């Protein structure tokens, strides 16, 4: 198993795309977070009292970061099929379950690393920017600090969510094999739910989409205010995404083990 792990780690590190995609995860979190928090104004909030979830807004970069995570997971699998290196991989490590486990571990660690940097960076940026936009303690917005339970949950949850998205990418990569097909399917998985919810007028269907679509369910964990309005509770939402990821990775694993290479 250590051999498989070292091989997958060396493989991932020796491809330029890996570094770029980890950067997309980290910088996507920070950059989109800055774009959102840097343009917020407390007096334009509308509602009174104003209940903007600034933590969640600070972490809005997850919408970009998840694309990087998804493509990272997909590419580390489909790249092997596209270039034919799947054969040397399986000749080097004929126990295919080990190959899958090692890929899951490496993709998980890489994504978690990029996501932790990105989430940390986005929260720091928000802390620096928000007070100047009027979100002060006096206005009801204490600094977002990781000492705060809900902020902590949002931060850790976002990292875990991105890891799960990357693992979904691994599973879909194994099932589809083709890079273009797998990336397209991955984007559909991430964005179809939220997009459909915009256009569906029936409130029951809308609620159902918000509850079960992976992006909406998984990102409930980012909420720190108005928790009663959530369609699914934070941890169960993330748990649901974990279930999706586990099912797809297992299906991919079964296909990997059964199929001729």
């Amino acid at each position: 198993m250590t051999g498989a792990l070292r091989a997958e780690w060396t493989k991932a590190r020796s491809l330029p795309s890996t570094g770029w995609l980890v950067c997309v995860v980290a910088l996507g979190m920070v950059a989109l977070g800055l774009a959102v928090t840097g343009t917020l104004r407390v007096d334009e909030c509308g509602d009174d009292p104003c209940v903007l979830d600034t933590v969640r807004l600070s972490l809005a970069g997850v919408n970009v970061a998840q694309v990087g995570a998804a493509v990272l997971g997909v590419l580390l699998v489909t790249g092997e099929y596209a270039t034919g290196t799947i054969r040397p991989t399986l000749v080097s490590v004929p126990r295919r379950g080990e190959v899958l486990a090692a890929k899951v571990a490496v993709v998980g660690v890489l994504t978690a690393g990029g996501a932790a940097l990105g989430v940390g960076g986005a929260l720091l940026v928000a802390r620096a920017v928000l007070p100047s936009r009027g979100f002060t303690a006096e206005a009801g917005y204490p600094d977002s600090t990781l000492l705060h339970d809900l902020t902590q949950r949002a931060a850790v949850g976002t990292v875990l969510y991105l890891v799960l998205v990357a693992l979904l990418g691994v599973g879909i990569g194994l099932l589809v094999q083709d890079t273009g097909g797998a990336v397209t399917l991955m984007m559909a998985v991430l964005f179809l739910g939220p997009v459909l919810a915009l256009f569906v007028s029936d409130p029951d269907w809308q609620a159902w989409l918000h509850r079960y679509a992976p992006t909406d369910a998984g990102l409930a964990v980012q909420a720190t205010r108005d928790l009663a309005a959530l369609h699914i509770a934070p941890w169960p939402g993330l748990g649901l995404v974990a279930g999706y990821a586990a099912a797809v990775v297992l299906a991919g694993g079964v296909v990997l083990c059964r199929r001729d290479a």
Partner: protein
Amino acid sequence: MEPSLEVRDVRKTYRGVVAVDGLSFTVRPGEVTGFVGPNGAGKSTTMRLLLGLDAPDHGEALVDGSRYGTLDRPLTRVGALLDADAVHPSRRARDHLLWMARSNGIADRRADEVLDQVGLAAVAHKRAGGFSLGMRQRLGIAAALLGDPPVLMFDEPTNGLDPDGIVWIRLLLRALASQGRVVLVSSHLMGELQDTADRLVVIGRGRLVAETAVPDLLASVSRDQVEVVTPQRSEAMTVLANAGATVTVQAADGIVVEGLPGSEIASLLGAAGVTFVELRRHRASLEEAYMELTRGAVEFATADEDAR
């Protein structure tokens, strides 16, 4: 235990198309075994089955008596060059070898050693995407040698190599065999194996056509044939044909005679006043031997189909 490759009554179909059909053979150490057959005969399939990449529908493909999938650190038991293109174009040559080495607990320095051995040390840090087919072929051979395995398998290793490269790989194959290793090398060109292989496993349409030592095969095809070099070709042909021999033209001034011993040919030509420069036993090329063998196989296959 002696290293070996063994295929036992293996059958493999892909979506109903039979690739390998009841194939059995054994490859022994200390010799270069040529694995030949026309394109699509099932050579690559057999190698994939031996490496556990594909699973046989029936029968067993064994390395050192075990299924490949059960081997520990398999790269130290078997080295294989299957497909020179199976390299990620964005990865540097050395990194390609490093991940394989690390997967089997092989020291990193082996990557540098084999790069040196195949003549790629100078491009070790270049990305494989910029390599010519010949260079990728060498990188694939380096990967096969990485674990210093007692069993080696090469699928069409001379593809894309220049003449220097072809000479190099012949010497390499001979050297590996003389070290007591099992060496199986496939080719669809018999001539390529003429001076390299000791034994041949010939397959056609997924079935075994022959498993034989190269000298025996050549002798069986060269039987009773005599080559005559003469400036008076047509006269010589007339004389010998009248004496009941089968005569075929081989070159501008040469004929091949079948059905008469050399001594009789000499006296017949002498009596008729036909001069000849040379008279020698005909040594068939491996190419001819192969044509003879596969012709038999095709005829057999046809008869087989007729019998249904």
